[in-house]
């Protein structure tokens, strides 16, 4: 299965520069718009990278080739979830790193504080997206995915103003991850992610390529 994760990285190698550019663009857009949560740059970058990665897998019906190797479909799905997790963590960490960099270089820039709470929220939102996206990807055909990609992009753009609500609440210290309710939501997200994996496994096993 790790070979499949390695495959994803080799395949995305040539897009690394593009991803970096996306990240920078997202960051610039979010920083200049003071009302938005900066951590969304991590979410957008992680998810865009995932969409590129899944896109690469179906662009040339690559699943037909993968399945001829000594692996089974469950491993393909498992590796994709692991890859998604890696993208999420790396993107969110990069986002934090950029935030810390900006703070040091330009402390006068009024940036929203990027706390651990926000980092966890970023990861949580991304995982929710992934949990809905991947079952659809492994179930639908190429044409279906084209539609889904557009839908998700619209949702993400709509997310920008919406994300201010929890951010505002967190800043006012009204809620935090120390709260039981929020912690339970976090647990729910993790469970959703795991359930999504099993659903995807089932759907992909039935599919004719």
């Amino acid at each position, binding site marked *: 299965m790790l*070979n499949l994760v*390695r*495959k994803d990285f*080799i*395949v995305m*190698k*040539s897009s690394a520069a593009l991803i970096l550019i996306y990240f920078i663009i997202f960051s610039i857009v979010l920083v200049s718009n003071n009302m938005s949560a900066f951590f969304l740059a991590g979410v957008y970058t992680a998810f865009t990278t995932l969409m590129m990665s899944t896109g*690469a897998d179906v*662009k*040339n*019906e*690559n*699943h*037909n*080739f993968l*399945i*001829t*190797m*000594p*692996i*089974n479909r469950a*491993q393909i799905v498992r590796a994709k979830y692991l890859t998604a997790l890696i993208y999420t963590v790396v993107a969110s960490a990069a986002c934090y790193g950029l935030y810390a960099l900006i703070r040091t270089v330009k402390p006068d820039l009024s940036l929203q504080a990027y706390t651990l709470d926000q980092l966890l929220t970023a990861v949580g939102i991304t995982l929710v997206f992934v949990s809905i996206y991947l079952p659809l990807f492994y179930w639908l055909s190429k044409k279906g995915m084209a539609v889904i990609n557009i839908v998700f992009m619209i949702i993400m753009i709509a997310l920008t103003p919406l994300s201010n609500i929890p951010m505002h609440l967190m800043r006012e210290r009204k809620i935090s991850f120390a709260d039981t309710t929020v912690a339970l939501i976090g647990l729910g997200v993790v469970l959703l992610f795991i359930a999504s994996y099993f659903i995807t496994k089932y759907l992909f096993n*039935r*599919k*004719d*390529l």
Partner: protein
Amino acid sequence: MNAIEIRNLSKSYPLFKVDNISLEVKKGYITGLIGPNGAGKSTLIKMMLGIIRPDAGQIKILGSEMPRQGIELKQRVGIVSDDCFYYEHLSIQDMKNVIAPFYDKWNDSKFSRYLEQFELSPKKKIRELSKGMKIKFALAIALSHGAELLIMDEPTSGLDPVFRRELLDLLTEVMQDEQNSIIFSTHITTDLDRIADYIAFVNRGKLVFNDVKDDVLERYAIVKGGQDLLDADIRAKFVSLRESAVGFEGLVDDRKQAESLFGSYAVFETPSLEDIMYYTAKGGRIHA
């Protein structure tokens, strides 16, 4: 032992179905899978590989059941297909780096030798390769991980005649080891006329025969003669006939019977596999 064993395999599509096919691919030999386009050859192979799920039936490859025990046994199977769906933007080298770690018995020096022999540069991107070169690449991969079974789905349709001959040499070289087996599906039967040991003929989703090639070529015959030799009974003995103003030409599946029937009034010829495919497909008679 059989390299591949298929029992009662079926798959239905709206306009077509693979109908209850059972066949064996014997170990140590080359089996050719022939049939016109759309006969079901590719569907059959895709089911063997787990790309398509059958509606019914069992598949055993090298003694193990597919797809349950699929992972381990795919170590010993090499696949060459005319839709080789590699990642187009990667180079041959990168693609190899993706594939090689999956195989326990990967032999890198062997792979490099094949690349040289096939004149493929490791730096070339997959999307820059012609169809024939993609097949050569697939072949290099298939032959570099110690595979005992080669499954080839229309491997020669994009190849120039020069390489097609080289391919035959490569395959007979593989067969020097009697542990190896090859199944080779194609509609270009001239490749198989020479080196195939067994022939399985699929037409309209059904298996027409699966037999020793030499026996098939001795059993069938092309019969040519004058119009006056035909009547309703005699026409029925043909798989199918081509009648013209200057005579008839047809295929029979029992040469001895035809020879005793026509004697010296007709000309008899050994058919090629293409003749058998053509006349059977035309005839609409499906033999179980």
